[in-house]
């Protein structure tokens, strides 16, 4: 092999592995944040709804603190190489999508759009060839949200909140019908989507239990069935 070429290739590999180390440092920070937030949000299953706003207030600053790390990563990644490195932080990013969407749902019961999620994570459009939130990862986050909501539906009934499952049911059905509009190929997203129907079914059963026993307020039931 040409000695000059050998040296060139070695240099390139060396700088790539240094870059990997640097990104890894940031990713570890992101993972810490995601664990903190997931830990906080887990409490939602055991507290009365009056305490939820306080809980969300403790999560929001942590979510905001990811902005600066995302910025650092976006500066580390060379131009056009987003897809090369993204696997390193994909898991963290998906969990942030889930956190942001869950917080939004608990705040006003609406679905956080992709654009709003991107904004809440402090991801800027001008980084798009270095750091972005792809549709796929956003959708993964939403599936995690549905998984979590089926659990919340159960636990809110246990806590005596009979209205919550109805709200969740309408919300989840909406997301589910959105997913059915997509042509997914046989990948992880597709498999996770296939599992969504069990969550939907579980939530429906809870709604059934609650309305059968006339535990839910009349008005909410009629709103739900009209959907």
């Amino acid at each position, binding site marked *: *092999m*040409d000695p*000059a*070429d*050998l040296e*060139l*290739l*070695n240099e*390139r*590999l060396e700088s*790539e*592995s240094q870059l990997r180390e640097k990104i890894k440092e940031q990713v570890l920070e992101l993972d810490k944040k995601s664990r903190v937030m997931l830990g906080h949000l887990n409490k939602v299953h055991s507290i009365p709804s009056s305490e939820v706003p306080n809980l969300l207030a403790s999560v929001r600053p942590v979510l905001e603190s990811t902005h600066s790390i995302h910025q650092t990563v976006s500066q580390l990644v060379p131009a*056009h*190489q*987003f*897809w*090369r490195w993204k696997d390193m932080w994909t898991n963290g990013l998906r969990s942030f999508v889930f956190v942001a969407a869950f917080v939004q749902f608990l705040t006003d019961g*609406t*679905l956080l*759009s*992709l654009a709003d999620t991107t904004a809440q994570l402090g991801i800027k459009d001008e980084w*798009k*060839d270095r750091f972005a939130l792809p*549709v*796929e990862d956003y*959708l993964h986050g939403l599936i995690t949200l549905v998984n979590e909501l089926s659990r919340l539906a159960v636990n809110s009934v246990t806590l005596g909140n009979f209205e919550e499952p109805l709200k969740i049911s309408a919300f989840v059905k*909406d*997301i589910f*019908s*959105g*997913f059915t*509009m*997509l*042509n*997914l*190929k046989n990948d992880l997203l597709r498999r996770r989507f296939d599992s969504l129907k069990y969550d939907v079914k579980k939530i429906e059963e809870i709604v059934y239990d609650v309305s059968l026993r006339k535990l839910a307020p009349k008005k909410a039931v009629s709103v739900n069935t009209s959907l």
Partner: protein
Amino acid sequence: MLSTASIFDAFRAEIDDHNDRRERLIKASRDITNISKKTIFLLHRIALSPPRDGDAESPEVSASKKGRANLVQVRDMYAKLKDDIAGDRFWRYEGQVSPGLQEYIEALSFAHFLEHGTLITSEDVQRTLLGDDGQPASRLIFPLTVSDYLLGISDLTGELMRYAISSLSQRGGRTKAMSTLAFVRMCKGDFDGFTPQIRNLSKKQSVTTQSMKKIEDAVYAIVVRTSEYDLPPDLLDDLVAQITSGNSDRKRRRDVSDDGDRENEMNVD
């Protein structure tokens, strides 16, 4: 606020677009693999044809020229796919582009070897991947990665083994086999240093080692026979032809893996 339906509608368009592009690149990669494999056969065929009187250039050089002309098709295909693989898309679809690209590099490096007897540099490979539109800076269709380059050229040794052994029965084939062997050894030595950093390279290195041993066995047979008989080159050529065919027969009987080897190689390719 947008309805969920309209949000997901936009996602569908984007996901479809991505899947279509992916399919397109997989097909193109298969076509490029095909052209490259055919080119490799062409290179073997012409390089091993006996030189004719009056030809200005050796069979190797004319093989190399024809092979390279053939490979321009590949560059044209990449140039046509530019929109699908330029910019940040290259890394998104790297997995779909790589197999064809590595096959192309193998063919290109074989053509280069036949003409120059050296290993093509990564820069030379990159130079063949320039589109011919616009300014020099934008002419690059996509950046060649260290991994694709190394994995591509590490397939070259298998072809060189075939080339060295088939040329043994020809006039001058023995010197050719010796120099090819030296080259393959150098490749093995140089590439070994990269195995920790490049995924899948170690698998290819074991194929390289097998190829190297096969040439070594063939060269060994020649040296032993040449020392025993002091024959004129013509007769020696006949003798060597017998030895090499006998050698491969014996080998097949000794370990069943000979065919297995070839299959392995196909898989690695």
